[in-house]
């Protein structure tokens, strides 16, 4: 058994080797050494020319056919692809591991742009549940509203919705930034582990419930705080970062960020075990 006597700044669980991660400051952690970038290779990626542009009408295609055709166009070097008539189809644009300028002229259904790494995407409509789930890098901009589980488990990149989003935005997110121009539903930031969420409007109940780490900035009213979500001081650095981010995102450029609320993890989730059953139910 590990020595648990000299553990002034460690928890017993850490001393016993049950986990090794240090939670503090994880949002600044670097995953890859940029010097080794040339060693990374994705199967199915292509050299594309952003000036080489084409349209793709997916009205009569299945999602699989449309995605295969996007891949085919990238293999031909097209770096800008405009998708016509997506008409709310599910799973469009998933699994693109490429630099690409992708524009959807319309709305997407569930799981749009899931598991992508690198593309710059603009959706001139709405998206359904779980948009950009597992996004690793790149930028996805939605001009209208989004459904629930927006940006679930994203690892990186910028995910921007200019309208309002449903429940559980940023659930389980592990990095990256989510920016919402309108309101957000219940359980925003549920179990988030890293990354940042910016909501310019109001947010529903149980904000940041059971979050491990990461930061949430709210411009409007908060329905209620979730378990272990606590207020934190909005610093000058935070405000500068928010201004930069909102400007780059082309959203809320003139928004008064000084009045935003900053919510972080209290990091006392073990207290959750002490909740009464009825409170637990509320937290779930």
């Amino acid at each position, binding site marked *: 058994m590990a020595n648990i006597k000299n553990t002034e700044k460690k928890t017993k669980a850490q001393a016993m080797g049950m986990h090794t991660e240090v939670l503090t400051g994880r949002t600044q952690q670097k995953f890859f050494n940029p010097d080794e970038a040339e060693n990374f290779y994705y199967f199915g990626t292509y050299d594309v020319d952003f000036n080489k542009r084409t349209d793709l009408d997916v009205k009569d295609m299945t999602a699989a056919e449309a995605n295969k055709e996007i891949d085919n166009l990238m293999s031909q070097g097209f770096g800008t692809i405009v998708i016509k008539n997506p008409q709310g189809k599910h799973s469009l644009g998933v699994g693109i591991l490429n630099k690409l300028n992708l524009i959807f002229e319309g709305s997407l259904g569930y799981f749009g742009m899931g598991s992508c790494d690198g593309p710059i995407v603009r959706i001139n*409509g709405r998206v359904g549940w779980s948009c950009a789930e597992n996004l690793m890098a790149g930028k996805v901009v939605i001009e209208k*509203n989004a459904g629930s589980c927006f940006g679930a488990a994203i690892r990186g990149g910028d995910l921007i919705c200019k*309208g309002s989003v449903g429940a559980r935005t940023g659930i389980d997110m592990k990095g990256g930034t989510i920016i919402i121009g309108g309101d957000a*539903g219940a359980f925003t930031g549920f179990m988030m582990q890293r990354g940042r969420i910016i909501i310019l409007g109001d947010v529903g109940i149980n904000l940041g419930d059971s979050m491990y780490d990461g930061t949430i900035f709210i411009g409007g009213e908060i329905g209620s705080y979730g378990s272990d979500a606590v207020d934190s001081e909005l610093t000058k650095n935070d405000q500068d970062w928010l201004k930069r981010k909102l400007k780059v995102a082309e959203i809320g450029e003139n928004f008064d960020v000084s009045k935003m609320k900053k919510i972080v993890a209290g990091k006392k989730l073990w207290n959750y075990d002490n909740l009464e059953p009825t409170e637990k139910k509320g937290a779930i």
Partner: protein
Amino acid sequence: MCGIAGLIHRGKSSKVGHELQGMLQALKHRGEDSTGYALYGDTDGKNFIMRFKVGENVGEGSTSVAEDVSVYDERKKIVDNYLSELGAKIIKEERILPYSLRYEIEYDKKDLLNFSQKIESIPGVEILSMGKSLEVIKDLGNAKMVCDRYNLDKLVGTHAIGHARMATESGVDIKSAHPFWGYPFSDVSVVHNGQLTNYWNNRRSLENKGMRFMSECDSELIAVYLAEKMRDGASLEEGMKESLTGLDGVFTYFVATKDSLGMAKDTMAAKPLVLYESDELVAMGSEEIAIRSILPQEIDTYDPFDGEVKVWQI
């Protein structure tokens, strides 16, 4: 996982049967054990339309026990006799399938509770709907199959709700299929996507208050719950708001009356709903592709938030 869809035209009528068929067929991947329609057709409002079944569909996939078709005729005869005893006059009679019938009835009493109890005291007989505008049609199979079987394509009306079912907690049969009639209220129907976890507690309580359940499908609870609230004087919207705390579990449901359509979403927003709203039309469904089947052009849609209740009038 089930799919629900609904639409309401404001200030005009349309081929709601055809429109709802398209919406539900777009959701068939969410379940095609059974499909149901609650259609609010254009009528003169004088007579009741009673949709009822005298047996189950025992075709492929059904969990019902096969019966000799002759019992359907016997049950129908008893229904006809009971209607006569109740003072109801059959104006028009349609036998769409051996087990499924549609009667147009002249009945001037307001007490649908005794009426329904009398008819449903016949074993194997269930009133699917009773109203002056509402017609509930439900059967096994996907939306197109049911629509074709019952010739719903041409039905003209103002609003409709429907359900594509993947059976999870009760049988694959018509009695467990949605929509549920808000017994014993004329022209009230409900469809639901989700699971209710306090079904038995609520059911026992409501049965003690004289309400009736025909299936063991948890969704039926919503119809009975709302009917009981309205019986006690609550408006539809008040009843729906109370249901957000009175019903436990995850749910998105639609309820329709003769002149209105409503939606409610649980406080965890665990079940999907996409909504399109304009001055002329409200259309909603579990997924946007349902709405796209009737509005293929670019439109603005949104997800209602947790704990939201909305009601629209025709």
